[in-house]
């Protein structure tokens, strides 16, 4: 009887039971993963398209946008330290707009991730803050869903602007002597978004041709 309860036996038994539990519950998790994966991917694609339709006029392009992209390496101009993906909108094969990710690192509370659409003519389509942690109720007006002004959200002022309308050195908030509005009490958020947008526009203008011409899936 006492032989059954040696230290070795007990540890082997407990280890065995732990192993069985681990295997069983890992199986449960992987099965759930397999069942939910298609739905998760579908909703991610949907989420992306919803965002793209906010920064681009729906119907201004007719290519399979999510399948037409180039990947770029780390790009300090866009604030991307691990690279990113640029989508290309075309209409009947003609370039319409580039959709870039850009990150403003100088927000009030950490990084502000933006999606910026730049037309082939060098005009901004639209800008949206995808994720940020600016102060709720104060700096979060950079997200039109949180902006109290629903008819003319702050971030809408960038739509349709090009460097020919506002010279590059005037891409600042009005408080810094620039051309863009900001909300009193939260200048830093507005400043960060304005600068990041201007850098993204400059990048897209400078590299526009090569970004449009590279075959899809290329890593630049």
């Amino acid at each position: 009887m006492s032989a059954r309860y040696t230290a070795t036996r007990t540890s082997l038994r407990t280890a065995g039971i732990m192993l069985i539990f681990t295997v069983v519950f890992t199986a449960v998790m992987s099965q759930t993963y397999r069942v939910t994966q298609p739905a998760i991917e579908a909703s991610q694609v949907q989420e992306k398209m919803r965002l793209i339709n906010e920064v681009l006029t729906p119907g201004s392009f007719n290519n399979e946008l999510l399948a037409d992209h180039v990947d770029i390496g780390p790009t300090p101009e866009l604030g991307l330290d691990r690279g990113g993906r640029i989508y290309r909108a075309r209409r009947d094969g003609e370039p319409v707009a580039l959709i870039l990710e850009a990150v403003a690192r100088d927000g009030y509370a950490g990084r502000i991730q933006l999606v910026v659409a730049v037309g082939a003519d060098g005009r901004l389509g639209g800008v949206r803050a995808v994720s940020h942690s600016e102060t709720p109720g104060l700096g979060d007006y950079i997200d039109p869903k949180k902006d109290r002004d629903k008819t003319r959200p702050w971030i809408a002022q960038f739509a349709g602007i090009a460097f020919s309308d506002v010279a590059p050195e005037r891409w600042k908030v009005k408080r810094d002597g620039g051309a863009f509005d900001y909300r009193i009490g939260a200048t830093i958020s507005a400043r960060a978004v304005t600068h990041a947008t201007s850098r993204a526009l400059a990048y897209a203008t400078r590299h526009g041709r090569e970004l449009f011409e590279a075959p899809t899936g290329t890593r630049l």
Partner: protein
Amino acid sequence: MQQDLREVAWNGLWKQNPGLVQILGLCPILAISTSMVNAVSLGLATILVMALANLAIASLRNFIPYEIRIPVFILVIAALVTVVDLAFNAWLHELYVVLGIFIPLIVTNCIVLARVEAYAAKNGPLASTFDGLMMGLGLVWVLALLGGIRELIGSGMLFTGIDMIFPGLSPISIFGEDYPGYLIAILPPGGFFALGCLIALYNWINGRAAARAAARPRPAPASAPEVPAAP
């Protein structure tokens, strides 16, 4: 059995309320209770996890060696939370975007492990599931109240974000458009203030009930059947 279940419900909803008495689960309480909709949504996810975890542990309790019960409990809870997380991501994506990082945080919510250890490891599956539901409900009403208070003081609105769950509904503005909004209520300190006030209120209600019970005249000895009539 019915008596037991009633006691389980009373413990979860009031006497041993996880939010107000056990103060287990501060992490989600303070992080997510910035609005009522967020708070209730995370609360419902927590109920689901608690009920499932209690059910799973109570059913398996005879196979779990005492020495390794804690790792096994954590394994089971983590697996269930992963399942809930994936399910939310797949079928309630809009809500998932908001609750995002908070769902995995249910694992770290001590209340789940506490109930598994204190109740499910010693009781049958049915009673344990009920205990999980009731403890979860106790947490949800506290979360809902807290979220409502913070949202109302912070922005003058109620039910912000309801359109993510029921697309037809929209938030209600209680204090009108001119309400300035007291940001502090939405920021983390506001969470502590509001929770403190709720706990104070809870203690006040309990204290008053106790005082009233003490002040009530004891029933006359003659009316108590077990006491023999005075000679």
